[in-house]
Structures are given as C-alpha cells and as structure tokens.
C-alpha cells in the first residue's frame, strides 16, 4: 500500500510542480517524469494484490467532516489499478512529442497539471473506501478530464463537446449523490467497510439502489442510452487524453457498478438481463454508428460504446447465470467481461494513440483526406493495423480470447437449459456475432481508407513518421495484446483473485483448459503467418514487379480522388442492414436530365439517441420553463427577497420537522 500511496504523492507533487513551471519543455519533463516514476510503483502494488489476493489498506486522518482518508486495495480495486497505471504510463510517454508543437505557442503547464491530477483521481476512485473521498475523487476526475477535453478550446465544437460532457457527467453525479446518501443513511456510516449491512436489504430497495448505480455510473461508462457525451468528447480531446479516457477513465464506472454488486444482496436474474440487454444493444448500436463515421477518432469513440457494451454483456450474463445457479457459466461470463475490460484498455489505447499519430502527421481527422499513409509512416501504420486486428477480435490477438469466453458462456447456457429460456442466450450469440462482423467492417474500413491506396489530399502526401517515443508507447501495449492472445492462461491466472471476490468461487480448471487451445492455436497461426510472410517476401524478391497506376475503370485521367471513400465502403453493408433511423442523412446527389450539371453529395452521420430523443426532449422541457422567466425580474431587492423567503421557509420547516421527529 505504501507503494501506491507514494505513487499518489509523486503524481500529485508532479502536478503541482508542473503547474509552477513557465517553460513548456520543463513542464513536459516534470509531468512525464512523475508519471514514469509513479506508475511502476502502483503496478507493483496492484500485481502483489492480484497474485496474492490479500487486500491492502491504509487509513490516514483527514479533517474533512464525515471523510476518512481510507484506501483499500483489494483484488477488485487492483484489477482496475493495473490498467490505469499501465495506460497512464504510455499515454504520458506519448504526450511529450505529441504536444510539443502545441507547446510552442502556449504553456503546457496546465495540461500536465490536469493530466497528473486525472491519473491521481482515477487511482483514488478505485481505491477509496470512504464515500466522501470517493465522491471527491470522482468529481476531481470529471473536472480534470473536462478541462483536458476542452484543451483546444478555441474551436467551437470542442467547447460544445466539453460542455455536453460536463452536463452529462453531472447528471450522473446527481444520481450517484442520491445513491450514496441512501446507502449511508441506511448503514449509518460513510465508510465502505460498514456497508456490509446492505446485503440484508429487501429486494425492492436494493433494486432502486442498483438502478441508481447502473445509470449513475453508466453515464460515465458509456452505457447505451446515456453514452451521448462520448462520441463528441473523444474526438475533441488530445489523442493521449482520449486514449486514457476511453481506455480506463470510463472503466472506473464499471468498477463502481461491480463494487456495488459486491455489496448488495445476491442479484436477481432481471438485474443481469437488464445489464446484458443494454450491453448488447449498446454494442450493436455503437458499432453500426462507428461504421459510418468519417472522423477517425469519432469512429473509435463509437467503438468504445461497442466494447463497453460487450463488457456489460459479459458481466450481466454472469449475474444471470449466478442467479440461475450455474456457477461455471457465470465464471466464464465474468472472466470474459473482465478480460475484455483489460483487453479494451490495451487495444483502445493503441488505436487512439495511433489515430493521434495520424492526426499529428496529417493535421486532419477526416479519413477521406488521408490514404496511402502506410507508405509514409510504415511503423505507426503497422502498429495501428495490429491494434485493429486485436479490436476486431481476430486471432492471434487478445480480443478473441475474451469474446470467446463470452461466446462459450452464452452457448453453454443455451445448451444446458430447457425450453424457452434457452432461446435468449442463443439470440445473444447471434447479436454478438453481428457485432463482430460489423467490427470487422469498421476496422477494415478504417485501415483501408486511411493507410492503404493513394494519398487523396496533399496533407496525407506530406505526412511524416511518428517520433520514437510515440511508437514505443503504441508498441508495448500491442505487445501485451499479443502476449495475452498467445498465452491467455496467464492473464486468467491474474484474474483469479478478482473472480474469486466477485463470484465467491475459486477459478476452475475448465476455464483455463477452455482458453489454452486457443493460445496454442494462436501460436501456430502466428508461426504459419510468419512462414507465409517469409515465403511471400522471398518470392517477391526473386521476381521484382513493375509498378504502375491502378486501372482507372476507363476514365481518361484517373486521380486518387476517384478511389473509395469511407462512406462508399460502408454504404452497401449499412444500407441493407440498418433500420432507417440509424442511417446517415444524405443530401444532394440527384442527377437529372440528359446532360446533368455537376452535383454534390454529402453524408452526415448523427447519433439518433441524441438528435431524435434527448435533444427534442430537453428542448421541450426548456421551452416549458420559459414561463418561469417572470420570476427573473432583474431587480436586486426581489432576488434578495427570494433568498429571504426561502431561508425563512427552510428554517420553519426544519423546526417543524424537528418537533415532529422528536415527538
């Protein structure tokens, strides 16, 4: 615990020193160095707990009323500390060269201050064992990430995205406050250690708490109907911040949900079904919108919604199986969900950092202006392709392992159960399969349009290779992805203490034996791929090929602009697959007459939940509240009068309530 605590101190100190610096380079050095020294300490502590299974605790006096600086690092917390520390390390390493250009025109001191504070806040959130500490860390995390999202605040869309994020995050905060007030008034204490009496709650009030936790935390996690801030905020933020937010910040919300599930009484099946269905819907929704985006980072943001959906599907189905008394299936589902959480942190980190190198090299996020980048930035391109393979759950990388576990649990549940109930898990398999197919479409499109072919625009033609530090910070997580893919048993062993805490059952050999053939097959596949590559390269070497332009389909002067666009690639699949409400708005493109005039075609992908449901809802609410404008007269005495009346009423009410309560 001392290691983790000193890591927190180093990060906090580093953030304060970074704030005091004047030069951008110095701020970068201080910020990076503090993260680089602090995170290995946190990783050490997390690994100790994950392997040994013995929780560590720390209690310090704290003068805040009701607060206690109590930290608890049990396997569940350590499970989240590990990816937070790992990804922070690489994001900090990446940020230096990525932000250097920005640092020439403005001071990077605030950036590093906020970045380190955000890491401190995330570590505190998952280890806090006191309500006040937890909520203040949660708020610190929201505020620091808000400022980081708003880093390029001179652009209006960035300001709008950050504002939406702040609004939605505070909506979640209201639910969380209600949750914690209810819980602590029931238990009579603000410390998590005294929340044990929650497990005796009657089902109805426990369900209220569960729903509050699900949506209060779900807002941050990108749970399906309340994910709306995510697709705007991730493109707006600098890439390493999006990587950190998408990779681990949203996962702290999953931590909150899991923590409450451990405290609440045994979950009835419908809690699990709700979570699994929201997860499956979110996965399908997220990936089908990801396949439509031109903005590469927005595409990745929607893919985050998809992956969080898969994680929720696994965890939710684990709850269902536990409620139905099938511990083995529950173990598979939980293991799949948890492993996917780690996997997503790794490969989404690689993907966002890779997207950052592309943005850094070309200055645009629009994939239709890229193309041919693999030739100009081969190393970053290859790493990005590796990340895409992992995220599309292709062997030999790690995405497959976790989804494989979820598939197994769904299939087992479908086979072992009798009658109508068996239909639901089998249907979920179908949905998950569809998600996988769409993910393949999305990421082949992302790679194909951005990296392959010819440069469509001068910005892509003048792209440069990424700096070594940026490549390292992409390469190491990708290597970790490959390791998990080749050796999944090891990752599952690390998960065993967390699984024990969540399910109450020790890890079964069945679980390990289910994934080890996968790992062996992955090793074989890797060797086979290597052999094929060697043969291919040798053949090409022996018979050098002449290069010429692609056949232009009969056009006289083919140019790179007639190659496939992002929209063109996904059109066929989406036009036949998606319901009308999910399809993008298409304007123009009609051709009339014998000799048609030049025409334009534009395609705009919207978030249907935001534009068709939530925005109209809130606009109509705002219109209704317009009628209350007469309260606002602009006269100071009248405002003071309001305060006076409110205070008097509150005072009388307190007195009255106190008398009645006292008898």
């Amino acid at each position: 615990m001392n290691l983790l605590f000193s890591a927190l101190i180093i990060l906090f100190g580093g953030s304060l020193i970074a704030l005091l610096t004047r030069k951008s380079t110095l701020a970068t050095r201080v910020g990076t160095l503090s993260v680089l020294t602090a995170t290995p300490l946190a990783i050490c502590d997390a690994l100790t707990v994950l392997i040994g299974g013995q929780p560590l605790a720390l209690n310090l006096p704290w003068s805040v009323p009701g607060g206690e600086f109590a930290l608890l690092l049990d396997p569940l917390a350590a499970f989240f500390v590990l990816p937070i520390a790992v990804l922070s390390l690489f994001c900090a390493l990446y940020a230096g060269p990525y932000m250097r250009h920005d640092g020439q025109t403005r001071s990077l001191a605030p950036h590093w201050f906020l970045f380190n504070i955000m890491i401190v806040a995330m570590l505190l959130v998952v280890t806090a064992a006191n309500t006040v500490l937890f909520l203040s860390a949660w708020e610190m995390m929201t505020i620091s990430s808000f400022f980081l999202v708003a880093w390029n605040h001179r652009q209006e869309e960035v300001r709008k995205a950050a504002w939406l994020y702040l609004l939605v995050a505070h909506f979640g905060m209201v639910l969380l406050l209600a949750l914690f007030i209810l819980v602590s008034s029931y238990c009579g204490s603000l410390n998590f250690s005294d929340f044990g009496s929650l497990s005796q709650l009657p089902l109805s009030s426990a369900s209220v708490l569960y729903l509050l936790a699900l949506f209060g935390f779900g807002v941050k996690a990108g749970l399906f109907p309340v994910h709306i801030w995510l697709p705007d905020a991730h493109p707006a933020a600098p890439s390493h911040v999006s990587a950190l937010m998408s990779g681990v910040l949203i996962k702290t919300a999953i931590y909150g949900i899991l923590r409450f599930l451990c405290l609440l009484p045994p979950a009835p099946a419908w809690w699990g079904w709700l979570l699994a269905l929201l997860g499956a819907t979110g996965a399908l929704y997220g990936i089908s919108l990801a396949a439509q985006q031109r903005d590469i980072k927005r595409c990745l943001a929607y893919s985050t919604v998809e992956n969080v959906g898969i994680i929720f599907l696994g965890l939710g189905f684990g709850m269902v199986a536990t409620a139905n008394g099938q511990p083995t299936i529950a173990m598979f589902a939980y293991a799949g969900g948890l492993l996917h959480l780690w996997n997503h942190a790794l490969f989404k980190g690689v993907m966002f950092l890779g997207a950052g190198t592309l943005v850094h090299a070309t200055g645009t996020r629009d994939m239709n202006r890229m193309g041919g980048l693999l030739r100009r930035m081969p190393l970053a391109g290859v790493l990005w392709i590796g990340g895409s393979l992992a995220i599309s759950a292709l062997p030999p990388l790690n995405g497959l392992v976790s989804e494989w576990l979820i598939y197994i649990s769904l299939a087992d549940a479908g086979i072992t159960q009798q009658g109508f109930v068996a239909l639901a898990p089998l249907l979920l398999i179908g949905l998950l399969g569809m998600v996988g197919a769409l993910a393949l479409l999305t990421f082949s499109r992302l790679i194909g349009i951005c990296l392959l072919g010819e440069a469509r625009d001068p910005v892509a033609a003048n792209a440069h290779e990424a700096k070594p530090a940026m490549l390292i910070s992409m390469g190491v997580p990708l290597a970790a992805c490959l390791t998990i893919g080749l050796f999944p048993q090891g990752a599952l062993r690390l998960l065993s203490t967390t699984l024990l805490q969540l399910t109450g059952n020790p890890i079964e050999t069945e679980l390990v034996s289910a994934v080890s053939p996968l790992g062996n097959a992955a090793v074989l596949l890797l060797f086979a791929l290597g052999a094929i590559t060697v043969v291919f390269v040798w053949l090409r070497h022996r018979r050098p090929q002449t290069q010429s332009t692609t056949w232009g389909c009969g056009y006289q002067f083919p140019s790179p602009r007639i190659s496939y666009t992002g929209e063109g690639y996904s059109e066929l699949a989406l036009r036949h697959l998606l319901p009308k409400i999910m399809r993008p708005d298409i304007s123009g493109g009609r051709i009339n007459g014998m000799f048609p005039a030049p025409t334009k075609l534009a395609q705009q992908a919207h978030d249907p939940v935001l534009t068709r449901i939530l925005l109209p809802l809130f606009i109509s609410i705002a219109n209704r509240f317009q009628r209350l404008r007469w309260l606002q007269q602009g006269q100071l005495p009248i405002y003071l009068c309001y305060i006076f009346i409110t205070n008097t009423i509150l005072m009388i009410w307190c007195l009255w309530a106190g008398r009645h309560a006292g008898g």
Partner: protein
Amino acid sequence: MIELTNPLLLAVILINFFTLGSARLGACIRVVALQGALLALLPLATHGMSGHALILGAGALLLKGIFIPTLLLRAIREVRIRREVEPIIGFVPTLIIGALTTAGAFIFADFLPLIAEHHEGFYVPTALATIFTGFLLLITRRKAITQILGYLLLENGIFIFGVLLSAAMPLMVEAGVLLDLLVGVFVMGIVLNQINREFSTLNTERLSALKE
C-alpha cells in the same frame, strides 16, 4: 454575565431600528459602526477575559467598528450622497415591519430547541432580529451603500450566534467569517464604483439593465 450582555443586546436592537428609520446615510454608517463596536464587547462580556474572546473582540472592533465604516464614510464623501431617497418601501412601513419581525424573532426563539443556558438571555432573538433587519434593509433600499449596511447587519446577526457558540467553534471559522465580510464589502465597493461610473447614480435598480 446576563446583567451586562442584555443591555448590550438591547442597544443592538435599538440600533437596528435606527438604521431602518433614518434616511441620513452618514448617521446610519456611524450607528452601524457603533453596533460593531458594541458587538466587539459581547465575547468579552459572555466568556470573560480569555485569549480567544480577546482576539475575537479585537478583530470585530477593528473590522466592523473602524475599518469598514471608514471605508464607507470615504465612499459617500467621494460619490457625494447624503440621503437615501425614495426607498422601495417607505421608512415608517419598514419600521413597522422591523418591529413585527423583531417581535416575531422573540416569539420564534422560544420555539427553538435550544439548550437551557441559551434560552435565558436575548442572544438568539437578537441575532434573528438583526439578521431580519439586515435582510429588510437589503430588500427595501435602493442605494448600494445602504445595501452594504444591510449586509453588515446580516453579518452582525451571524456574529451574535457565533459568540454563543464560540466555545465550540474553532477560531478559524470565525476568522473565516470576518474575512468573508471584508471581501464582500470590498467587492461591493468595487461594484458601487462601477455602478456610479456607468449610470452616474448609485441606485441598484439600474442593474436590471444587465438582465439577459
């Protein structure tokens, strides 16, 4: 100690009435300064000559009795106003309302679930009455100076409550309250100057132009 504190507190209430009934700003400021000075005696009268009470009294005397009134007197000299004209509610009606709220405060204090030693003495009713007076002044007057006075009275009321609790309340909290007051007056002073420069008047109702 009741013998000494009750006359003090009665004087505080009388000063409340004076500020409600008087139109002359200079007199009002001086009277509020006097109230501040009287309140500075209150901790000493209540708790005896302890170090804590001395610091508290000295702080109150310096800020409320001397520093802020001097600032305000200088301010009205500079902006050349002497009288509060056309209050939103006339002087006599405000006096009547003030009397009613004071009576209400006395009745209300009887209902409060206080510990026995706070029931005797006029602390709680005086504190409530002063707070109410401060609010009345804030609500009914137009000039920014009078509103600052209302704010001061409000703080004085809170201070009386604080004296009651000063055995339990750490010094930091009271110091914080005093600092808060000082900052508040400074901010209002700046606002005052800005209103004066912008609208060539100190009437706060012109601020309604700022309404969106």
